[in-house]
Every structure is written in structure tokens, then in C-alpha cells.
């Protein structure tokens, strides 16, 4: 099928298939999947300047579908999502400006790239360690899965911060938490997203769970809430620069919508620690993809 805006001919089933796979990831883990969709789109022949913008467009629609499912399952804390949004937007803007400043000072691709790899590997290792520990706690201590979190030190410390205003998050089962803690999480993830050019889902998810103590299923749904808005904003800005082929995005979205439903519904069949254990694989995949790009100078197409 011809896509006249991007000026390429691509099999629409391939695009829908990519959307379907990334949709499952998004629905199940609450991530945008851009770190995976990007290389696959590039491999499929999508021109470079259309990859990011088109992916953000399809991510917006996919997040909507997954979000509706998660909301019906009671997995979305909209109050938390809206409060975090301000910090996320500020963080993204800040991250983009930092990149501009660093680029003006000299070449920073390698520094940012390897920093990204280190961050991803730490997230992967820590999430795997914590979730295995939580699963053992369920078996040996006979804990309820909702209480099984293998690492609670940071969340307890964060919740003990009493800088007003204090907010209650009944949707997440949190009686009182400082608003600045919530904005801080949004700021950090937005900063990383702005600097690294990603949605930030696989950083936000662990921060919500281990930093704020949000239950895993709620973190998945709420993360999608953030992605929907940030991806929507990104779609607009990239479309204004002529970097979005909306036809491609719509085709990808038809597959993503199906995948997102499967992913979202599947969370009901997995307990929180198992979702976190499976999630730990994603940052590892992301780190490998970034390493391939750093070492070869190109993406998956080099393999």
C-alpha cells in the first residue's frame, strides 16, 4: 500500500502487526513501546523523520484504547495522573533544553546514550530483584499479593515527607502524600523523556511503584493516562513539523487497538509481582537496542 505523505510503499499488514505487538506491551505493561516500535518501523522502511512522530500518533490512539480497558478494570487513578502531568510537561521541556545546551557545548550522543543504557540496566536489574523477592514473600510468608512488594524503603520514605499541600489518592489506596512527591516523579520522568526522546513509561512505572508505593495494576493504568497526553502533545508538535504520516499511524493503530485490549485484559490473569518480573525484560531490551545503535551507528536494520 502506498503512503503518499511519507512517500513509501509498505505492506499495511506489517504495520498493523507491529502495532499489534507494541499494543500488547502497552496494554499489559502501561508503556508506550516507542523504544521497540521505532526500530521496527525503521526496519519496515519508514523514513527516519517520520518514525518518531508517526509512532507518537499511533501511541496516542493505542493508549486511549488500553486506558479505557484499564479504567473499566479500576486500574486508573486519574487524580494521580492529572497531578503528575504538570511535572511531566515541565520535565520534558527541561530535558529538551538540556539537550540543546549540551549539544551546543559539543557532541553528547555517546554520553547520553551510555547514560541511558546504564539507567535501563539498573531499572531492569532492580525490578527483577524486587519482584522475585516479592514472589518469595508470597510463598514463604503467605502474604497477600497486594502487600507483596520486595522493596518498600523508598516509598515509605517518600510518603513520610510532610511538605504541604498533602494529597490523598483514594484510587491508589494512599491516605496522604505530599503533592511535591507526585510532581517530582513527573518531573524526573519528563526530564528523561525530553533528554532521551522516549515516552518514559518504563521509567515512570518503576518510579510509581517503588517511589510512591502505587499498586502495580494502578501504576500500569495511570502510566497509560500520562502517555496518552504526552504522546498526544508530541503528535501535534511533530505533525506541525511535517513528521507524521497519519495514514501509517491509523493502520498501526488498527493492530495496536486489538493488541492493547489483549494486553489490558491479560493483567487480570497476573499478580503484581509477576507483571513486574516480566516488565524487567523491557528495559533490558531497550538497553540492547540502544547499545546496538551506539556500537554500530545504526539501529535494528544493522542486524
Amino acid at each position: 500500500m502506498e503512503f503518499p505523505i511519507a512517500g513509501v510503499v509498505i505492506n499495511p499488514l506489517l504495520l498493523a502487526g507491529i502495532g499489534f505487538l507494541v499494543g500488547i506491551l502497552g496494554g499489559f505493561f502501561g508503556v508506550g513501546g516507542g523504544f521497540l516500535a521505532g526500530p521496527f518501523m525503521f526496519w519496515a522502511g519508514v523514513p527516519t523523520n517520520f518514525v518518531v512522530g508517526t509512532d507518537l500518533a499511533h501511541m496516542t490512539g493505542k493508549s486511549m484504547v488500553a486506558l479505557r480497558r484499564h479504567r473499566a478494570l479500576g486500574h486508573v487513578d486519574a487524580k494521580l495522573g492529572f497531578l503528575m502531568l504538570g511535572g511531566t510537561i515541565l520535565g520534558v521541556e527541561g530535558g529538551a533544553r538540556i539537550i540543546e545546551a549540551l549539544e551546543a557545548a559539543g557532541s553528547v550522543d555517546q554520553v547520553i546514550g551510555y547514560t541511558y543504557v546504564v539507567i535501563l540496566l539498573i531499572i531492569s536489574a532492580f525490578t527483577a530483584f524486587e519482584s522475585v523477592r516479592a514472589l518469595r514473600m508470597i510463598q514463604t510468608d503467605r502474604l497477600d499479593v497486594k502487600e507483596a512488594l520486595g522493596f518498600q524503603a523508598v516509598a515509605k520514605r517518600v510518603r513520610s515527607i510532610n511538605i504541604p499541600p498533602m494529597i490523598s489518592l483514594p484510587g491508589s489506596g494512599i491516605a496522604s502524600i505530599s503533592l511535591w512527591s507526585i510532581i517530582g516523579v513527573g518531573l524526573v520522568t519528563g526530564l528523561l523523556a525530553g533528554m532521551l526522546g522516549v515516552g518514559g513509561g518504563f521509567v515512570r512505572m518503576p518510579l510509581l511503584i517503588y517511589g510512591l508505593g502505587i499498586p502495580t495494576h494502578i501504576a500500569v493504568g495511570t502510566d497509560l493516562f500520562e502517555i496518552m497526553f504526552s504522546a498526544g502533545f508530541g503528535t501535534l508538535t511533530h505533525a506541525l513539523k511535517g513528521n507524521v504520516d497519519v495514514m501509517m499511524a491509523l493502520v498501526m493503530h488498527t493492530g495496536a487497538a486489538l493488541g492493547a485490549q489483549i494486553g489490558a485484559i491479560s493483567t487480570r490473569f497476573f499478580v503484581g509481582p509477576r507483571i513486574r518480573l516480566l516488565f524487567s525484560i523491557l528495559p533490558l531490551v531497550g538497553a540492547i537496542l540502544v547499545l546496538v545503535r551506539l556500537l554500530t551507528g545504526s539501529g535494528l536494520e544493522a542486524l
Partner: protein
Amino acid sequence: MAKRTPQHANPIQDVAWRRLLVNFLIELAFYGLLVVGYFFLVLRLLGDPLARIFSDNLTLYALASLGLIVAQGFLLDLVVTYILDLLGLDRLE
């Protein structure tokens, strides 16, 4: 220490879960058929008009892009919901 309670029962053994799973598979089948029909009847016709807007007015194109993605998301979900309600099938929610 909290008493351990299984958060998720074995879906295969539970009849209610099996029924919901079958309903969900039926829903997916309808969804798939709708998507294929939508693709051939709507998406293929949008290509040229969108390309013209892209060439003439990027601001309009940007708004149209976001609007189309959001509308498609709502549309696909609404149509499937309507069909399932018409058929009297339970939703997983």
C-alpha cells in the same frame, strides 16, 4: 500479618472466567472483522485527501491527525460495544 488470599483464581477451572474468556474471544473476532472492513472501506479512501491537506496546510493537518487518531480509538471501541450489547454478550468489565 495479612492472611493470604488468592488475588486471581485459576481462570480455566472457574466457569465464570471461562465464559468471560469465550465472550472476549468472540469480541476479538468481531473486532478483527470490523477492523478489516474499516480498513478497506475508509482508510484507503483517506490517503489522497490527507496528502493534499499535508501539502497545503500543516496546522490543519496536525489537528486533523490528532482528531482522526482519537476518533478512531473511540469509534472502534463504541462499535464493538454496540455489537456486543446487541448480541447480549457480557463484557469482561
